[in-house]
């Protein structure tokens, strides 16, 4: 798909994120907005998925390890045709399929229930290992957070991914630098995350601007490195696309009010 069309979808997904969180009065816009290019590139250009056949065993798998960025995933799944946009009205509401964090039992297109940080990448490793075991040629993608990378489980999973030579696994780091209590460096420094990923046996690609669709698409299409899991660092901006949210710690888990939502939607027109 051409970059311009993908960018158009990304703008629409960003509007969905604002609409959804504003209507619910809750949710996580910041990290959803920083991951938007990755979501759109995966679902519209990279992954082999079919909304009309969402349980096809040969489909590519996606696990949102940073499960709180659900609004971005929900917007993308909706635009891709997995469910109708009326579901946005029930985001985070009783009996809704769009739970506060992704729920594989309730929502079409969700391959694993996530939200407890560190677990998604580990489940993705299991999927990739299971795919190898069963001869399934699918590829498994997961997006992890930089704050999430403080969880020990991320590194246990990484060790296993390299040990079992899971070249059918792509781990995408949404590196926006912010987490609930402040910057990564204020809360718990990640150090040289690229060197760490390499030391853990990943084939690492760093994307200078993880909110640049062209760069993201190129990285995701880079040929696999035989015998090694892939790790893509996306240097992103938390709250990307909404001026008053960009780079602001406070918009991690806070919904815009009606006035703020109106302004955000205006900025995201076009």
């Amino acid at each position, binding site marked *: 798909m051409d970059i311009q069309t993908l960018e158009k979808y990304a703008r629409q997904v960003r509007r969905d994120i604002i609409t959804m969180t504003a209507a619910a009065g809750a949710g996580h816009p910041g990290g959803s907005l920083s991951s938007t290019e990755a979501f759109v590139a995966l679902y519209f250009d990279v992954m082999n998925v079919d909304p009309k056949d969402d349980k096809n065993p040969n489909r590519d*798998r996606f696990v949102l390890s940073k499960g709180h960025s659900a609004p971005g995933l929900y917007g993308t799944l909706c635009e891709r045709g997995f469910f109708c946009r009326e579901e946005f009205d029930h985001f985070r509401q009783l009996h809704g399929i769009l739970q506060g964090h992704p729920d594989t039992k309730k929502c079409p297109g969700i391959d694993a229930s996530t939200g407890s940080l560190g677990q998604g990448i*580990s*489940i993705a*490793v*299991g*999927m990739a290992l299971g795919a190898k075991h069963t001869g399934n040629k699918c590829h498994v993608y997961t997006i992890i957070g930089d704050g999430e990378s403080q969880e020990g*489980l991320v590194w246990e*999973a990484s060790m296993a991914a390299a040990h079992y030579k899971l070249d059918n696994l792509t781990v995408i780091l949404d590196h926006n630098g912010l987490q609930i209590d402040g910057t990564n460096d204020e809360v718990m420094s990640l150090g040289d995350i690229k060197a760490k990923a390499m030391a853990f046996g990943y084939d690492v690609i760093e994307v200078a601007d993880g909110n640049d669709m062209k760069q993201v698409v190129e990285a995701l299409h880079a040929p696999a490195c035989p015998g090694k899991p892939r790790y893509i660092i996306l240097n992103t901006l938390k709250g990307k696309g909404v001026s008053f949210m960009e780079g602001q710690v406070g918009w991690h888990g806070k919904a815009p009010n009606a006035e703020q939502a109106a302004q955000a939607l205006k900025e995201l027109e076009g």
Partner: protein
Amino acid sequence: MEKKAIRVAYGEALVKLGEENEKVVVLDADLAGATMTNGFKKTYPDRFYDLGIAEANMVDVAAGMSTMGLIPFCSTFAVFAGRNYDQIRNGVCYPKFNVKFGFSHAGITLGEDGGSHQAIEDIALMRVLPGMTVFVPADANECYECVEAAARIEGPVYIRTSRLATPVYDPRPFTVGKGVLIRDGSDCAIFSCGIMLEHALDAADVLAEKGISAAVVSFHTLKPFDEELACVYTAKCKNVFTVEEHSVIGGLGDAVASAIIGKGVEKFMKIGINDVFGQSGKPADLLKEYELTGPQIAEKILKNL
């Protein structure tokens, strides 16, 4: 009487299951020689995955593998039910993934490794998880049945096994969720789970010598729990005593208590680990220290009848 550790039966059952069902894969965390999965490892090296000393990752990897149509059996020590808990809860039970947990070395009869390794809380942790089936086989034969049943059940299953060699009783009919009457009686009912069956039967012998007729019922399934049988024996015997190698909080005793409350029970007592941790020692000495031998159980029952 022949003796065999239930963990050994678990290992044998996996080998048999592996032959019957090619979807079965076994995961371990560097304990194959202790959890007894090394038999499976040797027989089906391509279906055995060691995840290293990383139990939490093992559970979520199993969760992911189950989504590919496999039936993973995760094996480690029961004490790590706590370490793995978030993964068991959110990674497996919340999405109702088809993962089995065969956790060994449960209870104080683990022995010399001491209190840090003696799981006295795992049944409570597992019972409270929605959708989890909880098996506590009483002997090797029941363990074979539990492993077979686990593979048939669609969803998470926990199997608690023990390190110590314990008596192997004649095979009994096995139905998931059904308790087993081992010995009938009318004055009191002793409900046991796991390897405490041996000691419950010893207690019943001691009581018989004193003219007290004790029924012994063994529960291999703690969830779903056979409330009906518990109520039948409560109505018949009036006096109910539960015996478990687990904390008296959240285990068999509490499952029985909530089943029989208001059902005509007169005396009720939970016999188990009384809200303390274990310690190093020989299994036989530990059972005595924590008052779980047959004569000690009988004494408690006599005092409370």
